[in-house]
């Protein structure tokens, strides 16, 4: 399969040049040197071609051979992806550990998907059926409960001439034969797809279902729709990774693809050690069973970091094609952009802003456009939601990666250092963040909880922005100068901030809130506000409202009321009514 196509002439870190072929294609996968290090052709000039190598090149010499494969950089798709942990070019890290020990040396060649493991397979087509790209041939049980839909490769179609019985098969066993024209072809559960090419679908559909994450500030204030794209920019220490982890744990997607792109090794280890023990709140299965991890930590080869994003999104699209909702976390897209910059610098390309190549924006656009809620080739509906972390240098949102990302996402969760240093987590600034999915998902909320979510949300946002204005005045003249009605706004905003927006990802009860709990909490705070305003109008002073015992209860309800104890909220409501009516009586 791989012939020698050239010899190396120049080496500079992950970028090498070779001479000898005019036939090698752009983005073709090549193997470099006797160790056959994997690389990808990124430039052609006459018979000289430039390759980015996905492994360390130290010790390599000009004159070493380069082998062509004739294929673009691809991933293997099939049952066995879930629960896997790969590096940026889909090499299974546990196998690398088994054969090389604790450190990753180069030249590892392993099948991404286990060839020996047998999967229980149930065919869903019969002889004589016409199938086309995307048609579901059968179901492989990827975990005890997860149905992996085995599909015809998008490029294949024909008439089924043979199907096996229900049974246990490996990914390379034939599971159907199709006839196209005169040719007969065996199909297996395993297929390949080039990572830089989006998988096809029939059409995009409008997004209207929110991705519920159990995080109150996200779900109620800045929701992302299934099939949408969100960005989390923030300086270091502001909680990007914790937020990403929380979403990976609690989002109501059926499959999670988590890409650790140029981030810390210990963080990936945390996910690896924690997820198998965490239970999915919806079906009681270990979280790892719905997760694919891609870990290309910051000290692993930089070119593979560039590829990791594409490897991840292709796997996400594959599960989307089965009709599942998939959420993809990329932590962090800035490291991916830096990998682009590093390779671009070695190619001596003309830089645009801050050394980034001019094609940064178009690459970002290509990536985020692979999110979507779509009608698949097999007419099922599936979605890929992208949540990309951005790490702006110095927390400065005007830098190129943040700015370009903002153009291609519709939901922006701005992390704020001043909140995180006050240990207000998630440190998402409610005045700088936005979501363009709010109107789209309003109907879903109405149907799901039967309450006017949009109205309550907007009222709360109004209070919070009013608070921001008032606190400017307080800073100048002190709170005593404000009339009590305005101080009531400050009091309610404090309840919103401390009682609702703050959420402790480490607390057993608080880490995840169902939508029912969320909306009830918001309702109670607004109810408190309404009654408080009435009494203030009667002449009550703010300090008596501030000192009501129920204020403390409202702040603590996030920890005190578990998701399955919603009736406790009725008690809290009664307490509000009782304590307020006592005050009311005093001022009547």
């Amino acid at each position: 399969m791989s012939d020698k196509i050239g010899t190396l002439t120049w080496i500079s870190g992950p970028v090498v040049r070779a001479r000898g072929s005019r036939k090698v294609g752009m983005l073709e996968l090549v193997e470099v040197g006797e160790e056959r290090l994997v690389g990808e052709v990124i430039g052609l000039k006459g018979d000289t071609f430039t390759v980015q190598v996905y492994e360390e090149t130290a010790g390599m010499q000009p004159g070493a051979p380069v082998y062509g494969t004739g294929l673009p950089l691809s991933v293997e798709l099939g049952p066995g992806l879930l629960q896997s942990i790969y590096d940026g070019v889909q090499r299974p890290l546990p196998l690398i550990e088994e054969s090389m020990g604790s450190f990753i040396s180069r030249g590892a060649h392993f099948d991404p998907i286990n060839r020996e493991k047998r999967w229980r397979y149930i065919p869903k087509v019969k002889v004589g059926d016409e199938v086309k790209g995307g048609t579901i041939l059968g179901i492989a049980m990827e975990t005890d409960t997860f149905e992996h839909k085995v599909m015809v490769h998008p490029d294949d179609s024909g008439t089924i001439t043979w199907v096996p019985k229900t049974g246990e098969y490996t990914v390379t066993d034939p599971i159907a034969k199709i006839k196209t024209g005169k040719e007969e072809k065996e199909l297996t559960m395993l297929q390949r797809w080039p990572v830089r090419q989006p998988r096809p679908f029939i059409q995009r559909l409008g997004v209207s279902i929110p991705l519920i994450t159990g995080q109150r500030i996200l779900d109620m204030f800045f929701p992302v729709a299934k099939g949408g794209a969100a960005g989390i920019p923030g300086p270091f220490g502001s909680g990007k990774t914790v937020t990403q982890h929380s979403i990976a744990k609690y989002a109501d997607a059926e499959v999670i693809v988590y890409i650790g792109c140029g981030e810390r090794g210990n963080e990936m280890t945390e996910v690896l050690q924690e997820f198998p023990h965490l239970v999915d709140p919806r079906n009681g299965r270990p979280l790892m069973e719905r997760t694919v991890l891609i870990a290309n930590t910051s000290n692993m080869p930089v070119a593979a970091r560039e590829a990791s994003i594409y490897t991840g999104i292709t796997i996400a699209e594959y599960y989307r094609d089965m009709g599942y909702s998939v959420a993809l976390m990329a932590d962090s897209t800035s490291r991916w952009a830096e990998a682009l910059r590093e390779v671009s610098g070695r190619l001596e390309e003309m830089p645009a802003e801050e050394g980034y190549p001019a094609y940064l924006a178009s690459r970002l656009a290509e990536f985020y456009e692979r999110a979507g809620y779509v009608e698949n080739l097999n007419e099922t509906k599936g979605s890929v939601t992208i949540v990309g972390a951005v790490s702006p240098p110095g927390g400065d949102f005007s830098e190129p990666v943040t700015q370009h990302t903002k153009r291609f996402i519709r939901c922006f969760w701005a992390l704020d250092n001043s909140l995180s240093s006050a240990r207000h987590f998630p440190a998402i600034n409610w005045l700088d963040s936005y979501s363009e999915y709010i109107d789209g998902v309003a109907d879903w909320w109405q149907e799901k909880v039967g309450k006017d979510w949009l109205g309550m949300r907007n009222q709360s946002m109004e209070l919070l922005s009013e608070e921001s204005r008032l606190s400017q005045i307080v800073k100048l003249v002190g709170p005593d100068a404000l009339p009590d009605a305005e101080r009531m706004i400050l009091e309610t905003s404090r309840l919103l901030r401390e009682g609702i927006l703050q959420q402790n990802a480490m607390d057993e009860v608080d880490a995840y809130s169902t939508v029912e709990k969320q909306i009830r909490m918001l309702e109670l705070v607004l109810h408190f506000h309404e009654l408080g305003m009435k009494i203030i109008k009667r002449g009550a002073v703010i300090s008596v409202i501030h000192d009501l015992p129920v204020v403390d209860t409202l702040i603590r309800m996030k920890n005190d009321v578990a998701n399955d104890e919603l009736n406790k909220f009725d008690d809290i409501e009664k307490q509000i009514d009782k304590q307020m009516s006592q005050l009311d009586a005093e001022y009547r």
Partner: protein
Amino acid sequence: MSDVTVGGGQEVLGVTRIDGPIMIVEGAANISYDEVVEIRDSKGRLRRGRVLEVGEEMAVVQIFSGSTGLSIDGTSVRFLGDTLHMPVSEEMLGRIFDGLGNPIDGGPEPLTDHYKDINGLPINPTARVYPRDYIQTGISSIDGLNTLLRGQKLPLFSGAGLPHDKLAAQIVRQATLGKPVGTQTDAEAEEFAIVFAAMGVKNDVADYFRRSFTESGALNRVAMFLNLADDPPVERIVTPRAALTLAEHLAYDLDKHVLVVLTDMTNYGESLREISNIRGEVPSRKGYPGYLYSDLSSLYERTGRIRTSKGSITQIPILTMPNDDITHPMPDLTGYITEGQIVLGRELFFAGIYPPVAVLPSLSRLMKDGIGKGHTRDDHPHWGAQLYAAYARTQDVRALASVIGEEELSEVDQKYLKFGRAFEREFINQGSDENRSIERTLEIGWKLLSIMPKNELTRVTLDEIAQYYQEEDAAN
């Protein structure tokens, strides 16, 4: 890595260009990328270098000790055929080396069969053990609010003139494996070692650390790698790598708990920038190369624990932030890689507080997994969050007080002011040889929290308040 000529390798004369520490050599075949070279000047003196870029019969070489005295003619270059390796052994503890790993204490070359590539290899994330054991440093602002764990990388962000060296030396002196409050500290002599790497620091600083290690009787467990301010800047690229290569051997082959102190990373970054600029690379921010993040991570990520060894590497890099600017590329990119940061603040320093740890911008990311139940004490996480929240509020109150005056503040706000002052003087402030137990740290914290009325303490549970809150007469 001695100056003794290593036999073998091909020797060529074709130096065509010398530009600062960078040299272009032509006419050699079969050169490997990243290979070590030995350069002989016209007087026969030797120096070392490394191949940065290689083409057909052409190589770009970086000279570690600078190019002073080299000439186009008369300089010969021997390509040694391998990447930079150094000998490592347990005997290197108690010794002092230069920035390239050659002994400078008059002792012999370390005897060993172990030669390791100084660039190391990335640890496979699946092979790591997540850090969970906390290190008790005896410093309240660290143990209580920014707990350091074994296998963590936690830098000190400082500024010129601030006592970062004093603090680092105190941490090294006092660090012991933390135990939950109430359990006996058994005197199991765990194997620990310290690897100290100085990059471009003044001789006094290196001397200060050496004295401090001697005083604490730890000198025979310390290996020092010194590239001082007047040593060649390019050598600085090698210094932390040499230190970490030894640390990895001690931790992962010999099961020791190794604390690595790297100072000053800002000088390291400047060397990197210098080389990058001479090579004409496209700069990113402030002239630093685009690969600064990847380069720094190849150092910082050599921290941690692995499953096949009992040992660990904990890193404390020290950075002086130019102009105290935390958004400068060095602290900024460091903060994105390390697991938190301890920031020293000038205002506290001027107020006479030692250690001047600016609590609000400081952070330990791993602390959540090493404190609380089974690690320190159950109330620790909430206690910490409450202290943070209260101190953050204090800052707002201070801003307000500076406008309207203290007398105009509400009663609660006045209590916050009182808390803030006490927090800085009693909690953050401590003696440079005061070694506080975690229990003592928690106790001081509760005493300070008790300055405030109970209903302000919303981050701690009611049970915790019942157990630890000190009623007014007790607190005064």
